[in-house]
């Protein structure tokens, strides 16, 4: 059998795609290039499946209905369909000097609901991912406590467990765009954001076991990795909702997320949720370490800087349409997106199609939880008109997501962190979507 040329395959696929539904067609075309590359590499073996595409459509019985599939434990730990290989974390290499101390973003454009699958949770490390043997991992609690303690993982898992759905966001999410739009895709404008069900023990339970002395007002949390990442956390937060977690979305933490143990400060900047947690010291004042002085402080226009800027304020973004998800057909369209607030619960989201001149309320869908991603939706019609589409969330404190102009007026453009402004996508009459800012 002769190897088909790339051109032949593309024509075949184009033809086949005419028979697909709108969504299928879009995905199909988007994947076309990698499909063709793969087919060319293995030669004629895939020709049958490529030319057979129309034969899998009604009224024909598809190929997979006329043969057997693979058996159980073919993949003892299951994998996504091979047709979903484009749904991965991605990085922007020029952001950091090197991948050991860097960040990757979650593919928000491809995610459904509010839970981020474990393999797609965004990554941030300062000395790479350590390979920790849980049998040799310890959590030490000391300082202003009556009984300094060391816990094994087995010890920690004996405590009554709690499971809570919470988002984690890097405070630098969107931080590349203070001066103007830079990134061409949702994954890079907002992808330092994920949401999981976390399982562990409230830190206050562990601190109670150690007996915090009355002078104890802050803790220092420290990681076991090469960065020995350290942050000072005020005791009020710990009494409120800080967790020490060992599991996410039903399984033990992924190494990238701190296996076997991490801190979780719900709604606060991700950097405070120390991964590979090994030590908690109780003290009477903050430590002013590198990650709370040199970094993770917000420089204002006048040269002064905010510190201990813990809360991730109310934010939202439209995930469809977005640059990765252009509109491919006129007619019915569900506009969807994600909203979140570190101060509590999302109360509502408004959507503008005209760059913020007028707004319409969207619906909140599914679970609406404290400090969790919240999905919103608005059903509409699109007839090829150009849009400047925006979402604006508000939370149960009454805080309304601000405009970028308002943030710049207060903070200037050099604060890097905590840019939670209303985001704009420009939808062209072709359905193509671009990242823009309105000034």
């Amino acid at each position, binding site marked *: 059998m002769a190897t088909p040329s790339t051109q032949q395959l593309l024509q075949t696929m184009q033809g086949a795609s005419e028979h697909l539904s709108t969504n299928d067609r879009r995905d199909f*075309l988007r994947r076309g*290039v990698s499909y063709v590359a793969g087919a060319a590499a293995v030669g004629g073996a895939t020709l049958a499946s490529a030319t057979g595409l129309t034969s899998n459509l009604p009224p024909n019985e598809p190929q997979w209905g006329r043969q057997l599939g693979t058996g159980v434990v073919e993949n003892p730990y299951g994998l996504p369909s091979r047709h979903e290989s*484009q749904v991965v974390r*991605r*990085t*922007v*290499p*020029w952001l950091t*000097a*090197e991948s050991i101390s860097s960040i990757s973003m979650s593919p928000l454009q491809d995610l459904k609901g509010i839970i981020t699958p474990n393999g797609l949770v965004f990554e941030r490390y300062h*000395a790479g991912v350590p390979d920790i043997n849980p049998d040799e991992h310890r959590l030490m609690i*000391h300082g202003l406590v009556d*009984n*300094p*303690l*060391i*816990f094994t993982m*087995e*010890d920690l*898992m004996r*405590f009554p467990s709690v499971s809570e759905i919470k988002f984690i966001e890097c405070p630098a999410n969107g931080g590349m765009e203070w001066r103007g*739009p*830079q*990134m*061409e*895709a949702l994954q*890079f404008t907002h992808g330092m954001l994920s949401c999981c069900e976390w399982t562990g023990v409230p830190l206050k*339970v562990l601190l109670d*076991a150690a007996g915090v002395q009355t002078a104890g007002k802050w803790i*220092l949390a420290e990681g076991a990795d*090469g*960065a*020995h990442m350290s942050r000072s956390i005020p005791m009020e937060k710990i009494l409120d909702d800080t967790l020490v977690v060992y599991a996410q979305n039903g399984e033990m933490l992924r190494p990238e997320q701190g296996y076997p143990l991490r801190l979780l400060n719900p709604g606060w900047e991700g950097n405070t949720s120390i991964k590979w947690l090994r*030590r908690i010291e109780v003290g009477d*004042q903050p*430590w*002013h370490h*590198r990650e709370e*002085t040199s970094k993770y402080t917000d420089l204002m226009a006048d*040269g002064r*800087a*905010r*510190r201990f*800027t813990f*809360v991730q304020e109310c934010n939202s973004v439209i995930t469809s349409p977005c*640059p990765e998800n252009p509109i491919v057909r006129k007619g019915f369209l569900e506009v969807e997106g994600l909203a979140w607030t570190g101060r509590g619960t999302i109360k509502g989201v*408004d959507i503008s199609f005209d760059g*913020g*001149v*007028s*707004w319409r309320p969207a619906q909140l869908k599914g679970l609406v939880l404290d400090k969790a991603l919240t999905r919103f939706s608005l059903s509409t019609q699109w007839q090829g008109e150009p849009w*400047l589409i925006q979402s604006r969330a508000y939370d149960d404190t009454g*805080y309304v997501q*601000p405009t970028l102009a308002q*943030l710049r007026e*207060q*903070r200037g453009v*050099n604060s890097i962190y905590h840019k939670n402004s209303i985001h704009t996508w420009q939808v062209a009459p072709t359905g193509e979507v*671009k990242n*823009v800012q309105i000034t």
Partner: protein
Amino acid sequence: MFRLPKSALALALFACAAVGASNSQDYQIGTAATAVEIAGWDIDIRADGKGLPVGSGNAINGEESYEIFCASCHGVFGEGEGRWPVLAGGEGTLADDRPVKTVGSYWPYASTLFDYIRRAMPFTAPMSLDDQQVYDITAYVLYLNDLIGEDFELSQDNLAQIKMPNQDGFFVDNRPDVSNPRCMADCADPASLMIQSSLSGITPIGHFVEGADAPASSHSGQHDLEASKEAERKAAITGEQLVSSVAQKNAVMSAEAIAGEATYKVACGVCHDSGLAGAPKLADTDAWLTRLQQGKEILTIHALEGYAGAKGYMPAKGGRADLSDEAVTNAVLFMVESQQ
């Protein structure tokens, strides 16, 4: 991994039953931490100097250590190499359009420097410096910022007394700092809207724009891309024919060297791809030829046991104590034979 043997489980159940449920919150879980155990892990230094070890150091002694352990990333004068942090300079720039945030211009406390160097530096071998070296390097970085003289003896008694220029430049978070009314109609004048578009060509967008000539999506991909562009540029000047370097190498490499490539990728490439910590880049044949004059055996010993020289610093096995001697030796052969 956390599974208890059945007998232990039975014992635990029995113990529960025996104790009863008189106080269900009395967990009695965990082991007392001894003073020795705490001392080994309690590495933090506070702004008031609490936690500083007994000792002292100065910039004169710190210069040599700084050049070995720090200069390859942070620059000889703290000016920063590539995208690595700038340590010195930038005074008076914090309100500028492009502020330069350094130890001298931005950091509020000198203690943070000692704490951070001890816990996380040098990047490739954290926790490997002794207290004397940390005092010396801390003094040298303060000296680079004109905050102490070169013969100032920095110690546990005076480090926290050093007043950093920007100590009073911070204030506690005062957000929410904006109030946006939830306007629903006529919120802006449509004629006044100005649309600013994204810069194109700087986002790795190959995943959704077909045929997009996007930058690579990984650091190693970016490195390869830059290397191949450089090779193309050189070839265009010299008129040389570009040959597939991979095919060329595989033809001449020993089996050990080929086996060493995997180790190189997971361990050595961190520094030898980018030149981090003064490492000779894999692609920098000139740098390797100089080193090769010492012989492969010496290079292998340096890789296994560690080495500090004028160009930079190599911890034993690159800081990867988990690698076998054989894996490291093969990786050295891979790097050496890549130069042929």
